[in-house]
């Protein structure tokens, strides 16, 4: 069956929301988990903070593709160990979880130095002025951490978007999955064009993320 370029673009646009949802959800999951990890590593709670360190080194040195497969095959096993038999773990859930965790390893390594970059005297000054720990964190420390962390976080976000291009490998029908379908349907005639279109779509997503982070950077910088 021959497909026109317009039809092809429409098909792509139909599945684009799946990519965007996965990116947003795994970014949110990754952010939450990274904050927790960073907290554990900074507080230096024995055993737990070492485990967090170990986790970060694991998430950073294992390819995203493998985490994806571990999550896809491993989550049902863990669930059945816990007594939930025949729970349907869709590839999309596995993708969101593994991408979120992969992302958290990267950005936790951005947040930790950013937190440590705040001068010790800032802590001391806040303490001497009678700030409670919560107040100190939200009013003094966090506003100084954010501008330092944002550029690195933006990079992490772009890498996350790049890595979500792998999720088709576990069977999510996203834009890469649809591309494979197209190619097999058209007997491999216009692969280069299809992947070029995908490159443009991913670029659009990445540059949007870049743009948003840049805007946030301008807003939060106190200079």
């Amino acid at each position, binding site marked *: 069956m021959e497909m026109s370029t317009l039809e092809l673009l429409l098909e792509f646009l139909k599945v684009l929301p799946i990519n965007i949802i996965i990116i947003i959800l795994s970014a949110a999951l990754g952010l939450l988990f990274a904050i927790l990890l960073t907290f554990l590593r900074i507080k230096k709670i024995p055993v737990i903070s070492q485990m967090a360190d170990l986790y970060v080194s694991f998430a*950073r040195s*294992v*390819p995203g*593709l493998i985490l994806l497969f*571990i999550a896809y095959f491993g989550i049902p096993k863990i669930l059945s160990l816990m007594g939930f038999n025949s729970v349907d773990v869709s590839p999309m859930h596995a993708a969101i979880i593994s991408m979120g965790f992969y992302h958290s390893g990267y950005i936790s390594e951005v947040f930790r130095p950013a937190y440590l970059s705040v001068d010790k005297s800032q802590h001391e000054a806040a303490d001497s002025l009678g700030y409670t720990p919560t107040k100190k964190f939200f009013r003094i420390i966090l506003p100084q951490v954010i501008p330092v962390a944002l550029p690195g976080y933006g990079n992490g976000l772009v890498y996350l978007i790049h890595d979500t*291009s792998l999720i088709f490998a576990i069977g999510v029908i996203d834009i890469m999955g649809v591309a494979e379908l197209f190619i097999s349907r058209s007997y491999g005639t216009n692969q280069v064009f299809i992947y070029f279109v995908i490159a443009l779509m991913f670029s659009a997503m990445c540059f949007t993320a870049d743009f948003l982070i840049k805007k946030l950077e301008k807003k939060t910088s106190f200079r």
Partner: protein
Amino acid sequence: MFDLKASYDMFLGILGLLPKTLLLAVTILILSTLLGIVIAIIQQYKIPVLIQLIGLFKLFLRGTPMVVFLYLMYYALPAMGQLIISLLGINYNMNNMSPVIILIVTVSLTLSAFQSEIIRGAFLAVDYGQIEAAHSLGYSFYQTFTRIIVPQAFVHAVPDFANSFTVAIKATSLGFLITVIDIFAKAKIMAAQNFRFVEAFLMVALIYWGAGILITKIADRYENDVRIK
């Protein structure tokens, strides 16, 4: 549930392919460093046209995932190679180009952009006083470059090179998408024989993790030994 014996067998089976992956990664690192040097020179001397092309290429890399780039190359590289070869008048069928070559070319191109930045940064980190001192001692330009600048720049670049090396190792895992048999593809094949997917992929993760830790440790050790205190 979790079969230790099967895991152990798989670990050994997969480990056998580690040298291949490492060799692939070393090739990629060398090629991308050479390319990175060329890019760094072009950027340093602001060679017109080429510098714009590199800017465009970097923009492309910023936005395009490596998988997409890999597929683009997989489908376009043989045709491009065929075109060049036919222009040169050589009769050779490029369509049976090995996917390994495509993987190496793609990852090297991607990494070269990072390598060029690392190289530039390393050279800029060498104190200008060092160059002046060398000149005052009567070193020629070539001697200053090879005996004073390069050794110091190299030490600066080592941690980043180690990082690039791990990136290269991780990137080779994408090879299975274009039928290159590396660690990951081997694990998939072994897992398909007895349906122990979780064990197989955990073993792969373990191997990648071990390799990553080892490389970081070696680089740290080297840096500590060489850095001038």
